[in-house]
């Protein structure tokens, strides 16, 4: 009986060793795969970093402005606030009358007005 038990134990031990070897081998392969994936991630992340930096360079305001001027013939638009929300007519209200402070933007800010235009107007208003 003892021999049978012993044999069984040896058999189980041998099987356990084989299973352990198998798992160990699987682990080694998985680790190698993981390392490769990690390297790929690092590479991809580096590439993403480079692309982000390249995008930041390409989208630089000075560069965009130069391109817009040389390739598209655009100029700086005057950054002027035409009105405030409080003065905008409600839906259904009558069109602004002549006395209204609101004017069509096209007649107030000519398309060719430079950025300094509001300043010049302000100077004229203050009588300098």
């Amino acid at each position, binding site marked *: 009986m003892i021999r049978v038990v012993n044999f069984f134990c040896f058999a189980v031990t041998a099987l356990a060793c084989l299973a352990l070897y198998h798992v160990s081998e699987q682990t080694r392969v998985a680790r190698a795969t*993981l*390392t490769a994936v990690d390297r790929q991630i690092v590479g991809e992340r580096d590439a993403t970093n*480079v692309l982000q930096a390249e995008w930041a360079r390409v989208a630089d*305001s*000075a560069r965009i402005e130069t391109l817009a001027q040389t390739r598209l013939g655009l100029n700086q638009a005057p950054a002027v606030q*035409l*009105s405030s929300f409080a003065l905008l007519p409600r839906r259904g209200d009558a069109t602004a009358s002549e006395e209204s402070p609101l*004017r069509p933007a096209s007649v107030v800010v000519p398309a060719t007005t430079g950025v300094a235009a*509001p*300043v010049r107007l302000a100077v004229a208003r203050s009588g300098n």
Partner: protein
Amino acid sequence: MAGEPTTMVQRRIVIAAILCGMAFAVLGARLVDVTLLKAGTAGTASAAIRATLNRADMLDRNGELLARDLPVQDLYLEPYALPDKQTAARELASATGANEDRLQHVFASHDRPGDHVLVARQISPDAEDRLLQFGLPGLEFDPSTKRFYPKGRAAVQVVGQVDPDGHGLSGLELGLDQTLRRGEPAQLSLDLRIQFALAQEVEAARQQFEARGAGGIVLNVQTGEILAMASLPDEPSPGSDDINPNRNRMVRDVYELGSVFKIFAFALAVEDHTTRLDETIPIGRGFRLGRHLIGDAEKMPATLAARDVFAQSSNAGTAQIALRSGPLRQREFLSRLGLLDPVRSEDPEGAKPLYPHHWGQIETATVGFGHGISVSPLAFATAAAIIVNGGRRITPTFMKHPQDTRGAQVISPETSATMRQLLRYVVTDGTGKLADLPGYEIGGKTGSAEKAVGGRYVAHKLLTSFCAVFPIDNPRYLVFVLLDEPHGAKASGVMALAGHTAAPLAGRVIARIAPMLELPAKAPIVAQMGGNP
């Protein structure tokens, strides 16, 4: 069976059983170790691989990239392996930009097996590709990083520089060195949109007035955040050969700023009730103090109301008002505003101010109108912000910190409100008219200081500046601009004084940046313009 001696077979069986038991115990222990104890550390190795970049990013307040480490390679080579050293040196020099003569020299002096030489540092992936196409033997690439600034020269002096080993050398790269090297990204208070607008307008004014240098600061007066800072020229420029383009003059240099300093003389007078704003101050041909005569750059009437002394920027009147406070009180007041100490910020290169050791009557008078004391533009802007923000102390910062950080009261809120009215009066009725902008009620003060050359003030070498605050009823932003030796144009009637050079510059800057700052115009601009037919 009990008491019988164990046989040899039985002993072997027991030993075998013990060995089996030990084997199972080892397997069990290993199983517990792998499945339970080391379960959470599986990613450690991969994390270590990922940690290849050694310096964190610098971003503007909107997340725009300002500085980043990018992967590059350092190139080493074993000269012994080269069949033709002369050709190799030429090819390597063309691909990497290295000096060909240096390469030939080191190849000749390190020609033994096992000798390695450094060919070039931080070569780009493109250069690496070109090198590989040459098929040279003995090349070794060592992974490294290079600091890249995608916005080029934008805010270059503020951001600073690093050495080839990635250590901060100047600016915020130096001030935030520890943080960045720990891998923590730094989100700065700078807004690249504001920075671009400020730098562009300041450079345009510098060229228009043929100034040696120019600069500007946009500061949030409630949080102390610096939204933009320009110091120009920021690259080698004709006529400005003696100016270091990498030097942030807004932080590192000190200037006698002249009449913008009258803000502090009047704030002190209002705070201490030594002067009423409607009080008549004698001006005439100047104010005599001992053997000195304090005069004005432009002809002034015989008398001026105190508020007009400020609006017309009279030195003679301001000197009299400053003297009412006295030397001790004036010095203590300027000290409380932080003007007598180097300004503290994340930039470690704050300049030390220059002020008189002996602070007597003459010094009190001259300091009142901004002569005899030199401070950095950032220190001045911070102190001016305290005057208008309700009178509470702020600390300038280059880090994004949108919360209100106003601290201890330096002057009373009432004094601050009065000063805001005075600053507005300068723009509507004084020397700062050209800074006015419809819809945004701007307050400000001009400053035209003669520069000292060889110990004497030179009339035609001016340092003009304008300190603008908007919206004036509840200020949020301060714009300070400075022009170094601007030239007026007689033909067009434009003088070199601040009212004609720095004031319109500040107005143009505000016109550009106010919409970006989402500041609503107080009154409809259309109505103020009167509406065109």
